[in-house]
């Protein structure tokens, strides 16, 4: 933070007069956001900060970042303020420089030297600060779940801006964030198009070169959703959103075998195929620039699925699906269609090439496609006509070569068909053939055509001994009426005669491909007068300029092939003679250096990288992929062949040794033989010992295993035993303890009970007696009462007034009743 403050001071200089500077305004606003208790105030301040965040980006970022982050956490329920915050953060972390910012910087330019630096990197710096706490990313992710437009949209934009600045960091955080990718994928279902479209951009940047995220995105039904969007937007006629969808698909599939497999298994190639069908009226309405872009992306998508860099199994499965869904058919239709833009046509040719590459059925289909010319010609012929035509653009010619190479790749039938068109036959050939085109291109005036034709022809010979032989039968007449020459001789002569490096390299590659593993071809070549002299001269040359080292290296390579595949039938150029020639005239060291110069050349490295020939300028086309493969595999063979020749060479001198030396030699040989025998015996012994050791180890293992089991059992049993005995002891003790006290207690109790019972009996008797007394007394009382009453009556009769309560009561009673 201090860094920015100090930078700030130098940017702004001392505050002039009364007018508050931008920095002061920002400072006031920031403090209001952090101290104000009223939501409205905070909201207003945030709105103001957002307005200033472009012009005073440095100030807002340096002072406001923490406060803004706090607001996001504390005021997250208020969509408006969250929206302002997200917008502000988006501005300060943006990668691009704003116009307002430049204006601001221009005003203060007189004071600063290192300003350019800060301006350019300020967005990235703020992004880095924001990303220091991974929780911030999760916070922004959580705002994607908020439906409110004012929150969701800026959240998407902020995330995009973060990813653009620091892709790797954000990718890693999202990857481990729970449901992080899922939240982003849900945005593709958004019905507010602006959010959905921005989410597409977000996902495009998120999925760049991160296979794990690509796979999760695909798992979250990305393919389905993207095809839905593409169809909603009008397919290939749709706008830039369609292109974005294709770009995302490309990201998901490029170099991601698992996703390609999923794409193929999910039958998405079926969904792709109909989009390649051109509408019948396209020629009239023409191709809009957007349609060209969309189409280009689609072609790249197909190429990504069948790229030669993918595992062969996956490529084969995709190629099959593309044939079965008529995608290949649609592509070849485009080749034939009128009015197709040049770059689409070029890319289609490349795409067709990769769709048929190494797949016999597709190659056969392609060879049978006829162009609708008059008379109909095979499409291959039409394409090759463009390849050897100087007027065609370079990329198109390269594409045709690539397509042709793909057609011949692992296709013996195709190779045979092409070579066959060159063989002398009785059939009158009415129309132009592939072979004729290539031959005329090979010896024509255009260096590039020479190169293209030579490379194309060399692909007819790759791994195909039969065609190497067949091609030797081909005769060519350079001029009408001239003596026909063999094709190989013609090549060798042309090699010496032409001055153009590109042509020479092309022919050398053709010859190398031809002569590798073919003694016959080598023999024919050695028969050409001056050929070997030319090679020797080139290989031994010590100076070169401008890629001539390639020429020298290739010549040396061809010499090496002549040694390695020599049947010694040319007495002047037997294996031995040739290797001596190399050693004496060129020198082994020089020779090896010439070879290694080729494989260390950047042209070689570039060509060996991928089968497709690529070039910006026609002069860049010097070496070619299949040749590089051949060079790689033959280099060792050549060294070996030369080495063996040298050994034989020194072997001859054995005869010239003195008798004593010879005896010594024999002695040593004997010794070596004996030692050899010993070694063998020991080795056998060793093997037996090892075997025995292994057996013993196994036995030991078994024994240990049983031992372990036994120990286990033992402990188990012991434990059981211990458990059992202790159980019994406990039970016993329990019994001992419980019975005696019970007995004495019982007898005590019984005693008590008996005593109580007897007590009870006496008491009952007493009670009975008392009751009886009471009854008697009661009886007596009644008698007395009766007597009393009779006495009272007699007194009343006698006229005595008896005044007592009882009679009063009686009278009252009687009155009441």
């Amino acid at each position, binding site marked *: 933070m201090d860094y920015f403050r100090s930078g700030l001071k130098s940017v702004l200089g001392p505050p002039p007069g009364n007018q508050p500077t931008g920095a002061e305004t920002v400072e006031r606003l920031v403090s209001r956001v952090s101290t104000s208790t009223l939501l409205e105030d905070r909201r207003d301040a945030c709105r103001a900060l957002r307005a200033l965040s472009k012009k005073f980006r440095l100030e807002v970022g340096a002072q406001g970042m923490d406060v803004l982050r706090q607001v996001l956490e504390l005021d997250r329920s208020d969509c408006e303020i969250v929206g302002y915050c997200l917008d502000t953060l988006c501005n300060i972390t943006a990668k691009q420089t704003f116009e307002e910012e430049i204006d601001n910087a221009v005003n203060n330019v007189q004071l600063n030297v290192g300003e350019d630096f800060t301006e350019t990197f300020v967005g990235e710096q703020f992004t880095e600060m924001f990303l220091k706490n991974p929780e911030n990313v999760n916070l922004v992710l959580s705002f994607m779940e908020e439906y409110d437009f004012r929150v969701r949209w800026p959240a998407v934009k902020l995330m995009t801006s973060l990813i653009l600045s620091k892709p790797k960091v954000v990718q890693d955080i999202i*990857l481990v964030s729970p449901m992080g*990718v899922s939240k982003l994928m849900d945005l593709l279902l958004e019905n507010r198009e602006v959010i959905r479209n921005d989410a597409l951009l977000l996902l495009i940047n998120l999925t760049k070169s991160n296979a794990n995220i690509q*796979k999760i995105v695909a*798992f979250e*039904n990305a393919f389905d959703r993207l095809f*839905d969007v593409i169809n909603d937007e009008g397919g290939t006629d749709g706008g830039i959103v369609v292109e974005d969808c294709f770009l995302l698909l490309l990201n998901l599939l490029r170099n991601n075998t*698992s996703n390609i*497999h999923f794409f193929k298994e999910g039958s998405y190639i079926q969904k792709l195929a109909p989009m390649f069908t051109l509408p019948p009226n396209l020629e009239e309405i023409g191709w809009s620039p957007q349609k060209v872009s969309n189409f280009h992306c689609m072609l790249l998508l197909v190429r990504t699925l069948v790229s030669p860099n993918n595992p062969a199994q996956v490529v084969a499965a995709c190629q099959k699906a593309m044939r079965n869904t008529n995608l290949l058919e649609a592509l070849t239709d485009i080749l034939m269609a009128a009015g197709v833009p040049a770059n689409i046509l070029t890319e289609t040719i490349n795409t067709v090439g990769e769709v048929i590459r190494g797949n016999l059925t597709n190659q056969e289909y392609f060879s049978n496609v006829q162009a609708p010319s008059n008379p109909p010609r095979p499409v291959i012929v039409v394409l090759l006509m463009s390849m050897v035509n100087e007027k065609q653009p370079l990329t198109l010619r390269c594409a045709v070569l690539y397509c042709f190479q793909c057609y011949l790749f692992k296709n013996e039938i195709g190779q045979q068909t092409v070579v066959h068109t060159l063989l002398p036959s009785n059939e009158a050939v009415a129309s132009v053939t592939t072979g004729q085109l290539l031959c005329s291109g090979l010896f024509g005036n255009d260096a590039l055509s020479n190169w293209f034709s030579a490379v194309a022809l060399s692909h007819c010979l790759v791994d195909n001994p039969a065609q190497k032989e067949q091609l030797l039968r081909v005769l060519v007449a350079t001029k009408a009426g001239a003596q026909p020459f063999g094709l190989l001789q013609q090549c060798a002569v042309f090699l010496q005669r032409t001055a153009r490096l590109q042509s020479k390299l092309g022919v050398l590659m053709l010859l190398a491909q031809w002569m590798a593993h073919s003694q016959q071809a080598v023999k024919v070549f050695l028969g050409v007068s001056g050929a070997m002299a030319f090679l020797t001269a080139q290989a031994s040359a010590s100076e070169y300029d401008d890629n001539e080292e390639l020429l020298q290296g290739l010549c040396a390579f061809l010499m090496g092939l002549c040694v390695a595949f020599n049947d010694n039938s040319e007495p002047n150029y037997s294996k031995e003679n040739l290797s001596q020639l190399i050693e004496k005239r060129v020198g082994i060291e020089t020779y090896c250096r010439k070879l290694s110069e080729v494989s260390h050349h950047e042209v070689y490295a570039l060509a060996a990288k991928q089968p497709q020939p690529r070039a910006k300028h026609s002069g860049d086309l010097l070496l070619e992929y299949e040749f590089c493969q051949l060079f790689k595999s033959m280099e060792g063979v050549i060294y070996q062949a030369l080495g063996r020749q040298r050994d034989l060479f020194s072997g001859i001198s054995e005869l010239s040794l003195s008798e004593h030396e010879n005896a010594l030699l024999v002695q040593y040989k004997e010794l070596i033989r004996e030692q050899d025998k010993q070694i063998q015996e020991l080795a056998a012994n060793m093997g037996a010992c090892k075997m025995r050791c292994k057996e013993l180890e196994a036995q030991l293992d078994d024994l240990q295993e049983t031992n372990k089991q036994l120990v286990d059992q033992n402990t188990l049993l012991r434990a059981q035993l211990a458990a059992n005995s202790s159980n019994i002891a406990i039970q016993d003790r329990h019994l001992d303890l419980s019975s005696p006290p019970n007995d004495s207690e019982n007898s005590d109790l019984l005693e008590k009970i008996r005593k109580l019972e007897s007590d009870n009996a006496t008491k009952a008797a007493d009670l009975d007696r008392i009751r009886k007394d009471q009854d008697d007394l009661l009886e007596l009382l009644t008698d007395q009462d009766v007597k009393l009453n009779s006495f009272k009556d007699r007194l009343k009769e006698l006229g005595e007034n008896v005044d007592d309560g009882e009679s009063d009561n009686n009278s009252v009673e009687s009155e009441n009743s």
Partner: protein
Amino acid sequence: MSYAYLFKYIIIGDTGVGKSCLLLQFTDKRFQPVHDLTIGVEFGARMITIDSKQIKLQIWDTAGQEAFRSITRSYYRGAAGALLVYDITRRETFNHLTTWLDDARQHSNSNMVIMLIGNKSDLESRREVKKEEGEAFAREHGLVFMETSAKTAANVEEAFINTAKEIYEKIQEGVFDINNEANGIKIGPQHSPTNPSLPGAGGAGGSQGSGCC
């Protein structure tokens, strides 16, 4: 290659228990004794038949290593079935099952069918986990259980197919919401919407409509 249903599976479990080999045996019918460590997640697919219906299985084979755990978690939610694999010759892989199960239950949808698999049943001599223990664990946690061998292919087919059967039954019972793709189930593009045996026939028609356009 039309299908009535598409099920998404994941395979989980400790590293080295044979998840990738199980998948390879199921999709390619071959065994690769030396298999590279899976990095992140790999995809495989195969068609099977249940109740005379074509069912497409899309299977994501996950990395068992702890380092990839946070990545593989992203796959739980969208899966209809999970194969939880342990190695019968390594006790610790069995002991970790609870962790795996908790993780799966926490991140997946509640209807996900989980099949417990004790792999490497061909290595009887090195067995450390009894079959009964696996059965007991499965019973306790409500899982389907099976011992397999990716090497001899024993029970491999059954493991994948029985899981599919279980899911299929759940669909028939109407437990799964088949229109929600997040459940890892999709209805095939050519699937007849008027199929009387299907409880959610109307819904199926709707999803078909959206799949076509």
